[in-house]
């Protein structure tokens, strides 16, 4: 009788001890998990473009159904370019960061702006660049990059890592460097962030974001040959991993 009592008490103590150990390890693992992602720089991965399926007859509806992005006022050609571009980056986290955006065709043929986020706001007013698919596609990524940047928690686009890369690597493009000189309302570091995202996702693009008072410039994509490694690491972490 006594023996049984002692055994049952001992078992109870052992069970409590084991439960405490399991609980401690669970809590410890949760608190340290955030640091695990921060040790070392993630490798720079090559971006594999996503497969572009044939566009549906109603491309606008197809973009809404597939990506949750509403485009108002755009012609078939620009809708097709958007369909293509969003599929090209569909292997990344980018489409999820901009899901829910509304893009209005900007009637001023010279300007575009990022004006809001998702819930009932117009996310973008975007110019229809005529006859320049690659130019429009790059600008689409750049402006949606602002949506990703402002409408998601900073961690989603690695804002701090980008800003520190800006401090250490300099601007990634002419627009990131001197946009505010020509357009007072722009903020260089934010334009640089949008370009950082756009160039990362569109490896075929050079410095296509010419600014109003700057001449055209088309050197190679800044990331090729290992350029801007801090940004590449930040974007790999934000958009690929």
């Amino acid at each position: 009788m006594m023996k049984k009592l002692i055994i049952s008490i001992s078992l109870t103590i052992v069970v409590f001890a084991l439960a405490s150990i399991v609980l401690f390890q669970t809590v410890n693992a949760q608190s340290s998990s955030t640091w695990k992602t921060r040790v070392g720089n993630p490798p720079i991965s090559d971006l594999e473009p996503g497969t572009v399926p044939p566009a549906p007859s109603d491309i606008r509806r197809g973009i809404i159904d597939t990506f949750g992005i509403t485009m108002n006022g755009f012609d078939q050609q620009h809708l097709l370019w958007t369909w293509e571009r969003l599929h090209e980056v569909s292997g990344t986290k980018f489409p999820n960061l901009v899901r829910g955006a509304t893009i209005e065709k900007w009637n001023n043929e010279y300007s575009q702006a990022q004006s809001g986020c998702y819930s009932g706001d117009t996310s973008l007013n975007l110019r229809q660049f005529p006859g320049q698919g690659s130019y429009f596609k790059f600008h689409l990524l750049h402006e949606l990059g602002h949506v990703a940047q402002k409408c998601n928690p900073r961690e989603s686009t690695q804002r701090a890592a980008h800003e520190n890369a800006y401090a250490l690597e300099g601007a990634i493009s002419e627009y990131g460097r001197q946009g505010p000189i020509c357009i007072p309302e722009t903020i260089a570091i934010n334009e640089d962030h949008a370009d950082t995202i756009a160039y990362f996702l569109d490896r075929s693009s050079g410095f296509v974001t010419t600014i109003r008072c700057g001449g055209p410039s088309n050197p190679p994509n800044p990331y090729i040959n290992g350029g801007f490694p801090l940004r590449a690491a930040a974007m790999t972490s934000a958009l690929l991993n």
Partner: protein
Amino acid sequence: MNKKILIIITLLFALLGGLFFIISSLRNITNTPPVTQNGFPTPTIYQVPDKGALIIQAQNISPLKKTHIGITTEEELKSIPNISQNGNTYSYPSPLILRPNEVIVENGVVVFEKVLIPEDQEGPYFKTVTSLKNAIGDPDGIIKGSAYYDWYAQTLIYSQLGLAAITNPYTDEVFEIHFFEPTSVENYISRFGGDIQESPSGQGPIHP
């Protein structure tokens, strides 16, 4: 031997029983419904925190803050690691290289401190607008537009509590917190609101 063990076990059970009784009694006390008079419940008296308590809460809202406004002396600032001086403005490292934390000194005493809030949502220093409002209520003023963060950022000014927060209304994030002596909204803006930059259009910039 067996007798001793039996006594110890009995004592242990008695102790556990006693503890159980005390806990049960306490729970009964806290769960006791309010005494009624004439069928009406006795009104519960809610304690409204006084301004002084709220000021203390506001001033301690972030453990990243290094000074006590109006108390910490210029001499004491020198103990902050990696602090540097430019006139009456001192800077110490924040998560952003280009935007360090700042302390402003007047007449040898700290009058302002700017603390950047890290973006790590799981980290201990992360802050949301919701948590801020839950702690210290609604601000005295809200101004849209920031010279550093851009047109969408909102500065929530708790002038009477000596606190202002630059925030992202779309994500509920707090970017940075400013601490100062309780004052008016206008006085905060004129003295420490250098980052406030209202967009004429209320929207993003026009691009080429």
